[in-house]
């Protein structure tokens, strides 16, 4: 299986964008080799600005560039983009609704050995809570390129969450990402797994294995966390009656919360959340961390079984008139 890190796809997409639109400028905070903006720097040095280790200033400069008509992409690790510079993003970018694209890499536990200080686990919660902000989590390299192009082509602030490790390529080159539109990756009628980022591949593996047990599980790639594709969530609840979310993020405030908010307001069905259980991570290999913190295909399978059991119990009670 072909493997591509979303940050690598981001670096290549930026170079293509640079050729297409002279308004594109790129900023980094001394992590250009890791975030892969160095690809753009080599090609377009006059439109690349390494602001040094100063993420707050980077967000402000990006806002000023956007106010003067540029389309800035600002990159650093997600923990700094959404954490350290949060208030700059809030007041200088989101409140002003300026056309700044924040492409944050090394999100989640899969940063690995650097440990909890560098593992962004609450960035989706923080960014999703900001008015005007679009939040995207691509699931593979193909979708990353599409998301970068879509962000550049639409006006307003956008947070794109990218990762460090190589991921399986899920989409073929004909795939077209649209902001706010979920993709059904696999049909099913017993339950639905709604996943984002690295957890989409895990969800597909889980669904494949559950099929062998006789369970038909729909898998949705919810790559836009905000605005959420509520129609896809409602349809999943109506048609499958049980929902599981899966994200490389704390279960508080991210994809699971967004889906839960939609379900309680529309079609409340049994729901389970796979994610980090309100704890910080630690150093370790990405695969070890995903195992220890419950972010694997097995965890998804267990959650699907729990959700289906709850649905069956509920249906049974309803039939018995209890």
């Amino acid at each position, binding site marked *: 299986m072909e493997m591509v890190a979303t940050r690598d796809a981001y670096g290549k997409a930026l170079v293509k964008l640079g050729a297409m639109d002279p308004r594109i*400028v790129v900023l980094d905070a001394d992590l250009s080799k890791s975030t892969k903006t160095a690809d753009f720097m080599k090609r377009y040095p*006059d*439109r690349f*600005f390494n*602001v*040094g280790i*100063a993420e*707050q*200033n980077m*967000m*402000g*400069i*990006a*806002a*000023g*560039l*956007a*106010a*003067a*008509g*540029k389309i*800035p992409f600002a990159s650093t690790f997600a923990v700094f983009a959404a954490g350290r510079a949060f*208030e*700059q993003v809030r*007041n*200088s970018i989101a*409140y*002003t*609704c300026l056309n700044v694209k924040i492409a944050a890499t090394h999100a989640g536990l899969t940063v690995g050995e650097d440990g909890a200080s560098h593992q962004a686990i609450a960035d989706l919660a923080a960014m999703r809570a900001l008015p005007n902000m679009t939040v995207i989590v691509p699931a593979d390299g193909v979708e990353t390129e599409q998301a970068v192009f879509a962000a550049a082509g639409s006006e307003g602030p956008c947070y794109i969450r990218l990762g460090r490790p190589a991921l399986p390529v899920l989409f073929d080159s004909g795939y077209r990402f649209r902001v706010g539109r979920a993709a059904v990756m696999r049909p099913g009628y017993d339950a639905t797994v709604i996943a984002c980022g690295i957890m989409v591949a895990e969800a597909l593996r889980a669904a494949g294995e559950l099929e062998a047990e006789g369970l038909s599980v729909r898998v949705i790639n919810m790559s836009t966390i905000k605005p959420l594709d509520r129609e896809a969530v409602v349809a999943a609840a109506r048609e499958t009656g049980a929902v599981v979310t899966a994200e490389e993020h704390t279960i508080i405030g991210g994809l699971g919360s967004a889906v839960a908010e939609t379900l309680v307001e529309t079609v409340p069905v049994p729901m389970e959340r796979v994610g980090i259980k309100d704890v910080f991570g630690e150093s370790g290999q990405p695969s070890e961390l995903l195992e220890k913190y419950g972010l694997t295909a097995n965890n998804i399978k267990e959650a699907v079984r729990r959700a289906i059991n709850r649905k069956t119990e509920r249906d049974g009670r309803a039939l018995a008139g209890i």
Partner: protein
Amino acid sequence: MDQVTEEKLKGTARQIRRDIITMIAAAGSGHPGGSLSAVEIVTALYFKEMRVDPANPAWPERDRFVLSKGHAAPLLFSALAEKGYFPREELLTFRRINSRLQGHPDMKKAPGVEMSTGSLGQGVSTAVGMALAGKIDRKDYRVFVLLGDGEIEEGQVWEAAMAAAHYKLDNLTAFLDYNGLQIDGPIAEVMSPEPVDKKFAAFGWHVLEIDGHSFPEICAAVAEARRIKGRPTMIIARTVKGKGVSFMENQVGWHGKAPDREQAEQALSELS
């Protein structure tokens, strides 16, 4: 500076001071002290130095002014109204529900506001971005930014200062409204930023020190900043907080308090 020009600027400054008092009194809240201290600086910029067109606020070639000390919104709004960006009567809606004139400037609402500010330290970074865009596009517009003296206690100011010098932004001119007072007291006691001149010089800026209430000195400093190549200029403007209203001058208590009707009337009579 000829006497006619200076007298005209003084007249404009007096009107702006009156509007500041009137709008804060009408709103019942706001920041008079730090608005009054920078009146001459903002007046000189909008009525003498800057290339702007109130009929076309989005003109790409315009000079930009960023009020990094966003709490001086009454000053900015009064100057913009005086310049013709919106009717002066609108100043009476300041801080009220549905107004374009927010407690701190909102670029999406008020015409002529270049950047939404209010969280200290952030405006100066955005001004660096605007100046950088001018360099990329080889445009000759200039960017002016006004900082408070207490504001430079924010670390982000120094990140921005470092970047402005690194990118050789000679199209960026900063004013420091050095009135010596912040909310909790004299800045020398709360958290001294001294030596301010040496600090900005060490960060690579051309540094000037002037009387911030003297139009000839302000305009001479801007002229010098226009001549300096290869680095940004910091104009440290010595000012008096609450300038022009006897009972507000150098009083820390008037940082963020509105005058009552009687106080407003006294202030306006002093400014007539």
